[in-house]
């Protein structure tokens, strides 16, 4: 069922937690902005899909998980890796294609991996990681642990066969997977309404008798609460959930694409930016006297330093050795 976007008053006792959410969103935002600059300078190559505008989804959702849960994401996954615990340094180094990158410089922006933090990619074929996530969920059921899998994907992925086959199996077999659709309204230049017969992504759960929920993806607390409910359902009842988080992407589809143009207007973009997820939390915390300007300044400063360090690490990290071309094709 659709949940009210309403979110409980901020609870003073959770100030620490709110600060954590805010810091994570700031970290992601600044990481992406700096990555964008580096890309513009030609220091990052290939396709680079930024997450700016969607921070509340990854931060709200991943903070609802346990360390031993598994995370799968698409190619727009810098944020998910970082929030899951992968160091910004190794993520930035991966974008630079360096040996110190979290995928050894072989994966790049679209293929971040960090088994140490159960971050399992970084997948470039739309929809292809949904069955993979179900596979991890199957392994959890097979081993009878109480872990959970969360799988992030865009709204354009719901029209592809893998979505249908996966959700059916997950519901049929009772797999502990949270399918979190980040509905930012566009798949490249195609608005959801031009690609899907049903505009409410969460309603697609009806074909599988699967629990569903839609949530304001610009409200980090709402996302956190919705995900917490779904994670509980997966952990305790071992049932999957389809969550639709309504969000928005500020940048172009990738650094190679226009920010607006044929498919959306500058006005729409500017209007959306008024509902910025970071500003929103800042304001609410300020209203609740849980954050003063000084603390915010300190936080931003710390974030900036963390990214500076990541940049330095990435630049100093060596290129992979030439032999690396031929390693990791097969495991001996």
């Amino acid at each position, binding site marked *: 069922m659709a949940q009210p976007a309403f979110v409980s008053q901020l609870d003073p006792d959770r100030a620490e937690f709110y600060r954590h959410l805010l810091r994570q969103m700031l970290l992601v935002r600044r990481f992406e902005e700096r990555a964008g600059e580096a890309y513009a300078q030609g220091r990052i190559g*290939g396709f680079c899909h930024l997450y700016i505008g969607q921070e509340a989804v990854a931060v709200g959702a991943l903070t609802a998980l346990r360390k031993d849960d598994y995370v799968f994401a698409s190619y727009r996954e810098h944020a998910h890796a970082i929030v899951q615990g992968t160091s910004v340094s190794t993520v930035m180094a991966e974008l630079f*294609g360096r040996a110190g990158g979290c995928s050894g410089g072989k994966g790049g922006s*679209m293929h971040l991996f960090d088994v140490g933090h159960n971050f399992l990619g970084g997948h*470039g074929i739309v929809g292809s990681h949904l069955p993979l996530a179900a596979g991890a969920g199957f392994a959890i059921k097979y081993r009878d642990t109480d872990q959970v899998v969360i799988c992030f994907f865009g709204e354009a992925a719901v029209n592809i066969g893998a979505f249908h086959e996966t959700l059916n199996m997950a519901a049929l077999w009772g797999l502990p997977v949270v399918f979190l659709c980040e509905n930012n309204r566009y798949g490249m230049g*195609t608005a959801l309404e031009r*690609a899907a017969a049903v505009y409410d992504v969460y309603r697609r759960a009806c074909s599988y008798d699967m629990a569903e929920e839609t949530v304001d993806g610009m409200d980090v607390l709402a996302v956190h609460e919705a995900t917490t409910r779904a994670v509980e359902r997966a952990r305790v009842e071992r049932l999957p959930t389809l969550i639709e988080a309504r969000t928005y992407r500020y940048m172009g589809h990738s650094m190679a694409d226009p920010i607006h143009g044929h498919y959306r207007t500058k006005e729409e973009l500017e209007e959306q930016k008024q509902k910025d997820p970071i500003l929103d939390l800042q304001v609410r915390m300020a209203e609740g006297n849980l954050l003063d300007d000084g603390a915010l300044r300190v936080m931003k400063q710390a974030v900036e330093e963390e990214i500076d360090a990541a940049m330095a690490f990435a630049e100093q990290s060596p290129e992979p050795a*030439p032999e690396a071309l031929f390693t990791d094709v097969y495991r001996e």
Partner: protein
Amino acid sequence: MPTLTYRDALNQALREEMERDPSVFLMGEEVGVYQGAYKVSRGLLEAFGPLRVVDTPIAELGFAGVGVGAAMVGLRPVIEFMTWNFALLAIDQLVNSAAKMLYMSGGQIPIPVVFRGPGGAALQLAAQHSQAFESWYAHIPGLKVVAPATPHDAKGLLKTAIRDDNPVVFLEGEMLYNAKGDVPDEEYTIPLGAADVKREGGDVTIICHSKTVAVALKAATRLAEELGVSAEVVDLRTIRPLDTAAIASSVRKTNRCVVVEEGWPFCGVGAQVVDEVQREAFDDLDAPVIRVTGADVPMPYNKQLERAAKPDPDKVIAAVKRVTYLD
């Protein structure tokens, strides 16, 4: 003669064929409103409207099948894959529906469809986005496979592919879209199955197609300048049907052969070429045929590793030295 980019040459071919034949339409992801992910379809939506320039959901299997179904009842669809990497999801429709329909129906139902889009590697797109599948499609009876190297060939071959009554796999190159070349004003087509000698020579034959034609030509220039070796560069243009006659006659003249391709070595296009050459020109060969291919690994993201994974003039020259026993 005006010079055009490979991109605009394709755009012209689509435009001309859609004007010529109302049963031709273009369907794929982002081909309309977005003007094409690589802008090959720029302006076509405005010119022909949404019924003939159709944006699809991300559903490769589905819209590829829609194309085959529309062809079954007489339309002539051009189905664009944003890249051929994604066509793996649709491959059942190409292999089990498109390629077999005429045969299974005892000759009743031809499938005049073109599947097109960029194949192979661009720059740092990593493993899942940097694959060349020529040899896969060429393996399938019922499919034709075309991979043009120049704007001139791209236009002439796409027009022929659209008029062909069989399913045609048309492989373009993201790295080729900006390549410029002469394209005649007057209408022309190029037959499928005809290779083209891009440079004449007498000492060694270099077989290539698509992006590797430029690589082979660079190598040929340097071979002439640096080693006084005269290389003949044969551009296959069409992989299936393969122009075995053109290949064999060149090798019979040069007695030496190098095959260059972007894809992986095992069972690649070059393997088939080697098979044909050693059968057709066994007694004329003065050295084994040597192949230059993409490295036998998933494509790495890192720029230097990626460069090392791709065929380049140095590798071609090294191969030529081997077949001419110059080292």
